[in-house]
């Protein structure tokens, strides 16, 4: 308001100067034709009306009438008028100048409004563009509030969404205003029941202004169609009600969009987890059934009297191998559950890399027994790591190598130290990893596109990755030039020379 008053004063001074200039100029030029002079004054009044407010134009009109009367209408130099005709002319001049001022002022007002409306439209447009860019992230509503504040130059914006009996309120801007939950409920209470259009304000009912923390906060209902979905609160720059309505509409659509995206994401996640579960069940089914059948039949055989010594040994070997298979399956599931729960504890010790390889081989002894192994450990130092986790990860790789390569194909294991990492690689002579499988190879329950005939759960490699992550290690795979795949794990380790243990 202060600014407007200063502006008016400045305009009034300029107007007075203009009128004075006209007066002086005509006096100096000795031009005394009242019509010319009146029209010139009128010109000044119109300019003032176009540039400033109506009140300034009215003051200018009054000044013009007085000056015209005093300096140019006989008797000159006095405020009296001799000729009654001139009275009439003076009144007409006053009327014309007032009407013209008014018209000009109204036109100006319209222009200002149009500019403002265009401005608001541009803000709404920008906002809707912003809204389309919001993702389904958890901060989407917060982001939305920030967009509204930025695009509409508001100091404070809050979006309140009903959550059962309470409200979820997301705010942005400073200073923060504590919104009264009662007020929100009250504001929302009127929603949905009445929806009247206020033609003068060009807005729907439901807007209200509440005082909170000593500030005026505009409350705008958010509706989808006529369904109320929440409340938008804004403080700062005044925004006209029509724009607030449109703003409310955009925000409501944006909220709906965010919620739909969230729902879609949740549905997608649950679909994926269903698919994972059924994949697990299907593969578990097969992986449990075969060992159980074999164990059951072998146990029956072992009871029989017809069995020779070597056959007896053979049957018990089958039982041991199948029990080992079940144990590994069970430990795999357990490891996976531990990884999921973040409950894998590390227990670091000084060991020689060869011990890791040895321990892993033991775990899968029966599975790999038909494959010749070549082990090459090039390390002269002890390393400090968790031997159990590392060996478990390696055992999974050995298991895979045996499963996915033809019977009697050799498996090569080499361990070495490089850049502070213990690197252990397992190379098989199977079909290698197809390019299509690579991106998802380490995903849980993912099984290669052409491996459905090899029994397995798709847990192994994801467990390897999970176990190594606990040790800050990593696993990767490459296809070898001569065929077959080479899986390698690397674990960061401390080292110390062998003698130090003595």
């Amino acid at each position, binding site marked *: 308001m202060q600014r407007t008053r200063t502006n008016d004063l400045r305009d009034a001074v300029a107007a007075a100067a203009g009128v004075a200039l006209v007066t002086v100029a005509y006096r100096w030029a000795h031009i005394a034709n009242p019509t010319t002079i009146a029209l010139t004054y009128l010109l000044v009044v119109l300019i003032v009306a176009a540039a400033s407010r109506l009140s300034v134009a009215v003051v200018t009109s009054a000044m013009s009438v007085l000056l015209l009367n005093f300096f140019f209408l006989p008797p000159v130099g006095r405020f009296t008028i001799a000729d009654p005709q001139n009275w009439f002319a003076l009144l007409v001049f006053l009327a014309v100048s007032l009407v013209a001022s008014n018209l000009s002022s109204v036109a100006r007002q319209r222009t200002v409004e149009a500019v403002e409306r265009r401005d608001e439209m541009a803000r709404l447009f920008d906002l809707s563009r912003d809204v389309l860019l919001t993702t389904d992230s958890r901060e989407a509503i917060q982001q939305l509030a920030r967009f509204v504040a930025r695009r509409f130059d508001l100091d404070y914006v809050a979006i309140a969404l009903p959550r059962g009996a309470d409200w979820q309120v997301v705010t942005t801007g400073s200073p923060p205003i504590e919104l009264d939950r009662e007020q929100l409920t009250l504001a929302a209470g009127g929603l949905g029941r009445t929806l009247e259009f206020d033609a003068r304000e060009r807005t729907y009912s439901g807007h209200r202004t509440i005082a909170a923390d000593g500030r005026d906060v505009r409350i705008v209902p958010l509706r989808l169609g006529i369904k109320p979905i929440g409340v938008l609160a804004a403080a700062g720059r005044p925004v006209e009600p029509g724009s607030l309505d449109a703003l409310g509409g955009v925000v409501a659509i944006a909220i709906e969009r965010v919620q739909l995206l969230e729902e879609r994401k949740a549905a997608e996640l649950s679909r994926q987890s269903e698919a994972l579960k059924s994949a697990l069940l299907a593969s578990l089914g097969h992986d449990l059934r075969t060992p159980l059948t074999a164990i059951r*039949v072998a146990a029956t055989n072992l009871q029989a009297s017809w069995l020779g010594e070597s056959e007896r040994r053979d049957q018990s070997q089958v039982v041991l191998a199948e029990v080992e298979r079940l144990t590994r399956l069970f430990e795999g599931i357990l490891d996976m559950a531990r990884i999921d729960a973040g409950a894998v504890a590390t227990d670091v010790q000084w060991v020689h890399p060869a011990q890791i390889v040895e321990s892993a081989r033991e775990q899968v002894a029966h599975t790999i027994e038909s494959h010749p192994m070549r082990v090459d450990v090039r390390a002269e130092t002890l390393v400090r790591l968790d031997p159990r986790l590392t060996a478990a990860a390696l055992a999974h790789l050995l298991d895979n190598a045996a499963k996915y390569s033809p019977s009697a194909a050799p498996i090569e294991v080499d361990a070495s130290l490089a850049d502070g990492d213990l690197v252990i690689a397992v190379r098989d002579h199977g079909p290698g990893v197809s390019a299509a499988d690579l991106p998802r190879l380490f995903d849980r329950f993912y099984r290669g596109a052409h491996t459905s005939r090899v029994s397995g759960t798709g847990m192994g490699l994801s467990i390897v990755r999970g176990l190594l992550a606990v040790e800050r290690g990593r696993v990767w795979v490459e296809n070898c030039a001569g065929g077959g795949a080479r899986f390698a794990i690397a674990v960061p380790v401390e080292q110390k020379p062998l003698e130090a243990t003595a």
Partner: protein
Amino acid sequence: MPSARILLVDDEVSIQRTLAPLLRSRGYDVDIAATGSDALQAASQRPPDLIVLDLGLPDLEGSEVCRRIRMSATMPIIILSARGNEKDKVAALDLGADDYVTKPFGPEELLARIRVWLRRMVSDDRAESGRQTLGDLTIDYDRRRLLRADEEIRLTPKEFELLAFLARNANRVLTHRAILKALWGPNAVDQPEHLWVLVAQVRRKIEPDPAHPRYLVSEPWVGYRLAAES
């Protein structure tokens, strides 16, 4: 009688290593095949008396193996299946397999099935006429009558047809599809409700306790079997 020869088809070494000694211990000759193509080759070169076939083979679908064997041979085929691949199992039965056991199975269960099927191959000439006895039931094909201890059990023509069809394939698992096709024609195979109703009617008439059928046994998700052994 020379000992029967059984072809065991399974790619799992542990199953081969346990089932083969078991079967040999009961006096059967056992051939082993680890893949579908090996099985087909073995079946044509040295036709066995019975085939035990695992459904999860590395090269061919089990049902495909059944189909190809059935093109040239009639020996009984018993399927080893896992719960969860009912579709495969039904397909294999439709394409010529005779029976199935579900993993994990007890050895005695498999041995019993093998005994039944081998005995049938020796004794059964698939009565198309005359009389057939099932437990205390006697089917008189000539006069289309069913007797229990010389007392007639009245059946409608459709009921008799169902019983006769099952009895001609006694002990064999018949899929819903196969029964529907035999009784109502190929257009009826997708309308199992006919069959449910008919089976319930027959059970009420022939079973001592219709709630726990002894003759007309359900094979869940697969079909029915008329149990000839009691």
